[in-house]
């Protein structure tokens, strides 16, 4: 994406974002309201950007025909996804597969596979409404991977998962990231440290930092950020640096006027 800009009424959610993502697991970190969800929603083709250009899998998503082709190869877990109370896990995942226009003959096996990968094989015929919050989240992940997507977008996927489930989920992320471009928006820096090949820090609608998790940890050690572990220290140090640079830029603009 180049020069991506997203506005919500008077608020600028994303401003001049340039980002190039390839296969691997990309962690999106940032404070609340930084623009992570706006970025994921644009990539998921749910929201249209106000400006800039977004290409996914080589196609410009503004074109309707290209958008359909992209959606076939896209998996998306929204921050809050509603589910249909009467549906079982199998039915919900199969329904999303149908919406993605997967060939009908492939759907039952794809559903079984996706549900098994998120560890819900034993609950596949349970009603979604009877599951715990963490299990519902895993149903959400199952629907996102049912079409074996080339681009997988996950907005706060580990919210509600217990520690053991999170460890298993990180392993799944690492496995998916070998062949897929996975973008994970999260507040949990330990998820990024454990599962991501690259980290992008978003602050006030702009990219504040890009690098690998070890490089972010190293920044924390060298710049002396606050936090309980190296990656947290890196996160706070990168934020601090970005905010200082933004203040300096604003001051220079003021002087120029």
């Amino acid at each position, binding site marked *: 994406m180049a020069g991506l800009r997203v506005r919500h009424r008077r608020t600028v959610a994303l401003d001049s974002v340039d980002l190039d993502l390839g296969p691997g697991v990309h962690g999106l970190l940032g404070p609340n309201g930084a623009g992570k969800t706006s970025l994921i929603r644009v990539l998921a083709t*749910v929201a249209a950007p106000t400006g800039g250009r977004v290409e996914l899998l080589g196609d410009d998503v503004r074109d309707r025909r290209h958008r*359909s082709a992209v959606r076939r190869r896209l998996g998306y877990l*929204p921050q*809050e*996804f509603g589910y*249909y109370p009467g549906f079982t896990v199998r039915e919900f995942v*199969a*329904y999303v597969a149908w919406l*993605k*226009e997967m060939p009908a003959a492939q759907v039952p096996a794809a559903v079984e596979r996706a549900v098994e990968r998120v560890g819900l094989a034993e609950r596949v015929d349970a009603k979604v409404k009877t599951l715990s919050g963490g299990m519902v989240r895993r149903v959400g992940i199952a629907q996102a991977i049912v079409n074996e997507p080339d681009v997988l977008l996950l907005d706060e996927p580990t919210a509600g998962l217990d520690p053991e489930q999170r460890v298993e989920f990180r392993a799944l992320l690492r496995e998916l990231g070998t062949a897929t471009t996975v973008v994970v928006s999260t507040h949990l820096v330990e998820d990024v440290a454990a599962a991501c090949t690259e980290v992008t820090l978003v602050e006030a609608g702009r990219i504040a930092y890009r690098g690998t998790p070890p490089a972010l940890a190293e920044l924390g050690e060298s710049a002396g950020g606050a936090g309980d572990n190296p990656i947290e220290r890196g996160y706070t140090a990168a934020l601090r640096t970005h905010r200082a640079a933004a203040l300096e830029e604003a001051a220079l603009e003021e002087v120029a006027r």
Partner: protein
Amino acid sequence: MTALLGARTATPLAGPLLYARSRAVPRALVVLLASAGLAVWAAHGLDAYVDPSRRVPVVALTPLFTSAVIGTSLYTASDELDRTAVRPWWRLRAVHLLTLSALTAGLLSLAVLGHPSVFGPPAMVRNTLGTTGLTAAAAALLGARLSWLPAFAYVSAVYVGAASAHGRLVTVWAWPMQPDGGAGAWAAAAAFVVGGGLYVVRGARP
């Protein structure tokens, strides 16, 4: 059960059945059938063979209720995921709305057979389509869960005020209370086409 089997064994109807269940269409069908039965019972109890105009409450109010049932069936619990669908939504929405509207109009007409020119089947079809059009437009603009509200307000106002209203345009704006087709039928048809079209293109507001 059929949908469950469909999800397990790849039948061509599995997807459409899951779509129907996602919109609670089976429940809506049961309520629509019950409403039609109630309308038949009510129309029979009004002794309309003495005076067909006694069927006014049935012709004006039953379509209002059934349009609310259709309107709430347009709700989706998973709007964010729906927006990433490859399948074109406009076809599903059009089939959904047209099927329920046609079925309801047909069923409700059975309640007022005979004397077609005085609150008979043409008036019932007109009112069913008109109120459903208003509800569909409200689903697109306000959201499906509140979609019944504008039609309820409009038809209630017309029901109360039409008798004392005068003027050339009364037959148009007071279409829910007109005994036959006429100009009111065009107004109701316009409401159905515009409201239905708005919903088919935009979908229900979350």
